[in-house]
C-alpha cells in the first residue's frame, strides 16, 4: 500500500518549509491566522491540546453509553428486535458529519445551556466548569457531545460483534450456576470481550481526533490551552477544525504551516490506531495465558484425587442443604451426594461431547 507512505511523504515535503521557517521575521507568517507565534511548535501545541481534550470529552461521554447500547442489542433486546436496532445504530454512522454539525448548532447548543449554567453555579470550583458561562453555547462541551454522538456507532458496532462472539457455553454455564444476567455478563461476557472493547474505544478516539466539521461549526475557538469547558472565548481549537477554518484564507506559507499541523494530526491518529490494533492483537495472547493458568488450577486428572475432591464437594453440598431447608428429607441428601460422587463420570463425558460438537460445527 503505497498510498499510506505517499500520504506521509507528501505531507512532510509540504510542511518542511513552514516548520523550518523563522516565524517572527517571516512576513508571510507574521500576519493572518499565524501571526504572533515564536515558532511552529508554539503554534501547534495548543492545537494538539484542544484536539486531545475534545476527543477525551467525547470519549468520556460516548464510550459508556456505546458499551451499554452494545450490551442492550446483544444480550437484552428481544432477538427479533435486535437486528432492527442494530440497523438503526448503523444508520447513525451513515449520517454525514456536516449534518451532525448543523444539528449541533441548532439543537445541542441551546439544549446544553441550562445544564452548563447549573454546572457552573454548583460545580464552578472545579476548573473544568469554571469561568464565565457562554451565552450562545458555542462551547467545547457542545462540540464534545456532538463528537460523542458521532463515535457512538463505531464503538457500538465493534463491541456488539465482540459480545455476540462470547462462547455460548460460558454464558450458559454462568447462568446454570445461578448467576443473574448481570453477573453472567460481568463474569463471562466482559472478560472475553475486554480487549475488543478497548480497541473499539481507541478506534472511536481516532475518529474523534480527526473529526473536522462538527467542531469547526460549533465551537467558537481560540488558540490556547484551557481546561474550561463552558466558556465563550476559552475553547481550545482542534487541529482539524483550525485547518478547515483557515485554509481558504491562508497564503502559501501559512498553508504549509497548516499542512504541518495536519501532519501532526496524522501522526497522532496513526499512533492511536496502531495502539488499538496492537491491543486487539495481544488479546489472543492474553486470553491464552489466562486459559493456561486456569488449566493449572484445575484438579489433577488422577482419579483418586478427583474422587476425593468430589467427595468433599458432595459433603459440603449436603451440609448446605440441611442448613438451608429445615425439613429436608435425608434421602434427598443421599441422592445428591450420589449425584456428586457420580460427578467425575459426567465430567469425563462432557469434554468428549463438546469436542464432538465442535468437530460437527467445523464440518
Amino acid at each position, binding site marked *: *500500500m503505497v*498510498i*499510506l507512505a505517499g*500520504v506521509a511523504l*507528501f*505531507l512532510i*515535503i*509540504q510542511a518542511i518549509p513552514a516548520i523550518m521557517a523563522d516565524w517572527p521575521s517571516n512576513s508571510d507568517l507574521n500576519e493572518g491566522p499565524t501571526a504572533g507565534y515564536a515558532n511552529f511548535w508554539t503554534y501547534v501545541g495548543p492545537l494538539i491540546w484542544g484536539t486531545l481534550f475534545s476527543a477525551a470529552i467525547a470519549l468520556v461521554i460516548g464510550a*459508556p*453509553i*456505546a458499551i*451499554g*447500547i452494545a*450490551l*442492550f442489542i446483544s444480550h*437484552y*433486546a428481544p432477538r427479533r428486535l435486535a437486528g432492527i*436496532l442494530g440497523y*438503526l*445504530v448503523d*444508520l*447513525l454512522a*451513515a*449520517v*454525514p*458529519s*456536516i*449534518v451532525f454539525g*448543523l*444539528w449541533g*448548532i*441548532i*439543537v445541542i447548543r441551546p*439544549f446544553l445551556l441550562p445544564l452548563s449554567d447549573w454546572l457552573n453555579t454548583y460545580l464552578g470550583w472545579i476548573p473544568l466548569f469554571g469561568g464565565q458561562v457562554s451565552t450562545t453555547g458555542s462551547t467545547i462541551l457542545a462540540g464534545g457531545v456532538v463528537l460523542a454522538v458521532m463515535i*457512538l456507532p463505531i464503538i457500538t458496532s465493534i463491541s456488539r460483534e465482540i459480545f455476540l462472539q462470547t462462547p455460548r457455553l460460558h454464558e450458559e454455564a454462568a447462568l446454570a450456576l445461578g448467576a*443473574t*444476567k*448481570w*453477573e453472567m*455478563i460481568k463474569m463471562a461476557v466482559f472478560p472475553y470481550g475486554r480487549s475488543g472493547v478497548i480497541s473499539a474505544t481507541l*478506534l472511536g478516539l*481516532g475518529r474523534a481526533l*480527526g473529526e*473536522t*466539521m462538527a467542531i*469547526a*461549526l460549533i465551537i467558537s475557538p481560540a488558540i490556547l490551552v484551557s481546561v474550561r469547558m463552558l466558556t465563550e472565548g476559552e475553547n481550545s481549537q482542534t487541529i*482539524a477544525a483550525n*485547518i*478547515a477554518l483557515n485554509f481558504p484564507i491562508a497564503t*502559501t506559507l501559512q498553508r504549509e504551516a497548516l*499542512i504541518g499541523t*495536519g*501532519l501532526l*494530526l*496524522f501522526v497522532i*491518529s*496513526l499512533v492511536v*490506531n*496502531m495502539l488499538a490494533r496492537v491491543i486487539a492483537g495481544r488479546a489472543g495472547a492474553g486470553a491464552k495465558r489466562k486459559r493456561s493458568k486456569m488449566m493449572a488450577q484445575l484438579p489433577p486428572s488422577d482419579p483418586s484425587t478427583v474422587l476425593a475432591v468430589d467427595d468433599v464437594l458432595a459433603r459440603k453440598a449436603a451440609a448446605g442443604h440441611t442448613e438451608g431447608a429445615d425439613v429436608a428429607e435425608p434421602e434427598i441428601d443421599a441422592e445428591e451426594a450420589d449425584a456428586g460422587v457420580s460427578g467425575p463420570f459426567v465430567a469425563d463425558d462432557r469434554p468428549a461431547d463438546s469436542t464432538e460438537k465442535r468437530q460437527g460445527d467445523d464440518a
Partner: protein
Amino acid sequence: MSATITPTPRPVAPIGNALTSGQLPRYVEWYVLGASLALSAVILLLMGFNIAGWLVLTAVIYLIALGILSSVVENRRKATDRVIRGLVTVAFLLALAPLISTLITVVSNGIGSISWDFITQTSGSVFDPDTLEVTTKVGAWQAIVGTLIITGIAALISIPIGILTAIYLVEYAQPKQWMARTVTFLVDVMTGIPSIVAGLFAFSLFSLIVGPKAFSGFSASVALSVLMIPIVVRSCEEMLRLVPGDLREASFALGVSKFSTITKIVLPTAIAGIVTGVMLAIARVIGETAPIFMAASFTDNFNANPFEGPMQTLPVMAYTGYKFPGQDIAASNASAWGAALLLVILVVILNLIARVVARVFAPKGSR
C-alpha cells in the same frame, strides 16, 4: 363442660413456594415505570415542565425506585441486575434520541427550501437590465452534479483496487506471509486516517504536480478514494472469507484453474455482500466534507469538468452556506439546510439500495 377444642389453626396463607417467593411480580418494571413517569410529571409541573427534564427525571426515579424495591423484596444481586438492565435500556434510548432529533431537524429545516427549482437551478445572481435589480437565485444543481462526479470518480478508482486487494488477501496470500500481514495492517491503519488529512494529501499532491491553486474535482476524488479503499477492502475481504472452502475445492477437483475459480465461483457467490459493502462505502464518503473542501474548494458556478477549476458539492455547500454566508444570511442558511437534506436523502437511498441488492443477489439455495 366440654372443653372447647381449639383446632390447630389452619394456615391462612398458602405455604410459600420456595421457587417463587421473594420475587417481584412479572410486570413490576412496567408498574414502576408508570409510577415514576407520573411522579416526575407532578414534580416538574410544580417547577415548570419540559419534556427532556421529564424523561431524565423519570429515568432517575425509575432506577432508584426499582433498585430499592428489588433490594427490599428480593436480594441485592437481583437488585443490581434489575438496575443494570434499566441502565442499559436507558443508554440505548439515549442513543436513539440524537438519531431521531437529527432527522427531524434536518427534514423540518430543509423541507422549506427544497423545490424543483432548488434541485435543477444553478445558484448565482442575475442582473436584470430593465429594472436594474440584482436577484439571487438559489439552487443546488451545481452541487448535485459535483457530488455525483467526484464520488463517481472516487468509486471508479477505489472499487477495482479494493476488490483486487481483497482477492489477493483471501485467495493468493498465505496468512503467515509478511506481505499479507503488512497489507492487512496498513489497511487497518488507513481506516483511521482523519478525513482532513486525506484532503491535505490530495491538495499537496496536486499542488506539486499542477502548481498552486490546484483545486479540481479530480483531486477531491483522489482524497475520497484514500478514505474509501480501506473500507472496500475490509468489507470485500469479510465477504470473500465467508465463501465456503468446499466450493473452491469442488471447483479445483474438476480441474478448473485458480483464476476461473475466482471469477466463476468465488465472486458470484460473494457478489451480494461485495455490492452491499461498496454501496455502504460510497454512502460513507459521499458525506465527507473536509477533504472535498480542501481539494475542490467551493464555487457557485456550474462546473462539470473534474480536471479544472473548483467544484461545488452538497456537503461543502451546507458548510459554506452556514460558515461563510452571503449577503442574505437567511437565504444562505436555508440553502445550507436544503443541501443537508438532499445529502441525507442521497445517503438513505444508497443504504436502501445496498439492502435491496443484498436481498436480490443473495446466492440461491443458501436459504
